């Protein structure tokens, strides 16, 4: 058991900063309501330190809460630390364990036009001085760019016999990405290529947990570099015997 709590200036003081808006006019009553709301959220103590009207019927609050809640850090699961391979190691690993160039397709799907993320992973020049997949001698990489319909991605993947398919999703408002990603997995399954393809998804609001839930093999969030996803792909291919 390794119970952890928020830390303000003393171990386990449980201090958390909050800000929120309530749909009521600013007044002493509203401030008291905000204080009760903070308690309702589960804080044992809450101090409303600022209130400002955003409109006649909305008020903004800044509050500091104190909570007794804790979590057991030893019980936090699902985030094993992977030791990533380097550019050279990956190419060597492919040569040694797969024995041929692997084929990877990437796309930003649906109506999403945010290509910077997938480009960061795919393009020659890469991102933050980490080369993209196109630069890997043992990877044949195709970047389909933005707003790619799931059907197009599927048919292209089949055409070139992709080993791995990388999907980027940036726009997440009203969970539009969930619908879109779910559809993609269903399509791949319907065409019986799901198991012969390593399916990955990435984006700033994506994490591994969500990806697994949606039926992907792995999910990648902010701060991902090409070697991260490449490490995952090649290991997964070997594990699945896709080679």
């Amino acid at each position, binding site marked *: 058991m390794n119970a952890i709590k928020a830390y303000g200036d003393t171990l386990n003081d449980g201090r958390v900063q909050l800000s929120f808006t309530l749909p009521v006019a600013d007044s002493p009553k509203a401030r008291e309501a905000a204080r009760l709301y903070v308690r309702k959220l589960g804080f044992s103590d809450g101090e409303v330190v600022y209130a400002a009207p*955003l409109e006649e019927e909305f008020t903004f609050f800044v509050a500091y809460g104190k909570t007794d809640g804790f979590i057991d850090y030893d019980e936090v699961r699902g985030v094993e630390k992977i030791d990533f391979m380097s550019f050279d190691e990956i190419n060597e690993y492919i040569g040694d364990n797969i024995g041929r160039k692997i084929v990877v397709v990437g796309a930003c799907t649906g*109506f999403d036009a945010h290509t910077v993320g997938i480009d960061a992973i795919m393009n020659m020049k890469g991102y933050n001085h980490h080369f993209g997949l196109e630069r890997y001698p043992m990877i044949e990489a195709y970047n389909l760019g933005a707003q790619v319909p799931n059907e197009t991605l599927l048919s292209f993947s089949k055409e070139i016999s992709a080993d791995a398919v990388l999907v980027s999703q940036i*726009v997440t408002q009203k969970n539009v990405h969930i619908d879109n990603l779910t559809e993609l997995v269903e399509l791949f399954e319907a065409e019986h290529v799901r198991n012969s393809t390593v399916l990955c998804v990435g984006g700033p609001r994506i994490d591994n947990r969500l990806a697994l839930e949606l039926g992907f093999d792995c999910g990648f969030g902010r701060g991902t570099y090409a070697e991260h996803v490449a490490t995952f792909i090649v290991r997964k291919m070997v594990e699945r015997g896709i080679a």
Partner: protein
Amino acid sequence: MKDMLGLEIKKGNKARCLAEAIVGPVREYISRHTTVSVERASLRLCGVDGMDQEGTPVPNIMANQLKAKTEHGAVRYLLGACLKKGMSVDEMSRAVADGFDISSVEIPDMALLEEEARKYVERMKTLVLENRKLRAEKILKYKSNENSPLLYVIVATGNIYEDARQAEAAVFQGADIVAVIRTTAQSLLDYVPFGATTEGFGGTYATGENFRIMRKTLDIAGEKAGKYIRLVNYASGLCMPEIAALGATERLDMMLNDSMYGVLFRDINMYRTFVDQHFSRLISSYADIIINTGEDNYLTTADAFEKGYTVLASQFINERFAFDAGMPSRLQGLGHAFEMDPDIPDGFLYEIAQAQLVRELFPECPLKYMPPTKHMSGNIFKGYVMNTMFNLVAKLTGQEIVLLGMLTEAIHTPFMQDRYLAIENARYILSNTASLSDEIIFRDGGIVQKRASEVMDRTLDFLGSVAERGLFESIEAGMFADIKRSASGGKGLEGVFEKSPDYWNPFEIMLKEELCIGGTK
């Protein structure tokens, strides 16, 4: 305009000559072509509206009926049908929604058509002139309550009613301008949806009804606040001219509108875009609507330090296209952005250099300055500070229209409280540094001046190469934003028509007359 950079005026003139050399050949192409969207816009200006049972907007049904006949001008068929059937445009709209085909009617005499057209053209003129008058009066009346620069915020909930509520709050908080961001990918729809909408992703559909709802909200909120609140939408994408038409009649005040944005960033065909942007600008010019060009977009993919000159180059091209549509400088809200990597030492000076450069080169334009977006992260506190520095540069360099950065830029479209914080931040800076720009002088030959002159020189080089190659060819070669677009590729080329010799569009004629533009008639 204070000359802070010691810029030789002649460099600006040189850039303008190059822009003319670049735009000239395109102008020639534009004058010989029309598009489905230009025609649908013209139908709308006549008063066509509504949709059929499948939800297809009537202007689209009509355009679809015309197909190749579009080359003669759609208004000819609409008014022809009206005359033949003895119906008003309203009645005809309903008839078409119920299945009537305007292409099936024999066209009456040109004189009759012109007679009939006069009615609708006059109606449109009256409407637009009233809008102009009302706007001008209100702005004059409330001038002293405005922020300087004008503070521009966005709403983007996807639900027009929720947007209206957010907008009201924004006005209460001190905003001067409210833009309703469009839903993801509306730019690729080749129609303008009909009616009020409550679903959207990262934005709200642009529709006539949504425009009306928001216009009314802002008028009421503005009166309460003692201000005229400007409403903004997008005359951009495949329906650029139609939205311009809706904006003119529904009294929008600003429109995102760029001569090349659709080509580069939405893969819309370049011929289509050039023709569309021209007609949309004719309308906006006449309606006294400020356009906001999209140069900020260059910097969302390219590095602001490396590619500062592409912004400037695009501004000269946008200016030239705008002048071609009779648009005075005071309506040209040329865009630029504060997108330098915050880790660059002296980044603040480079931002000043670029902003001041644009300011001095386009002294009469209501420049629209965009906040940091690319380098915003989930660290809302750091983001809030970056927005502060942005506000400071905006004030210091005398920008007119300042789109306020949101501290949650990297996370979600703005919460109500995010907008409040943004406005509070800006108002503090505007007041706290009110006279700063009068107070300081940049050192001769200093970092700011040097940077400005470097960017200027690179702009001239770049415009020179484009002029040499031609604009179409330059875009094909990927000279803009590192994006290659083939002249025959992209969306919407099928909607471009060479005008037949008897092409007739009474709105185009009227607009060109009113705006004193020569050219083919």
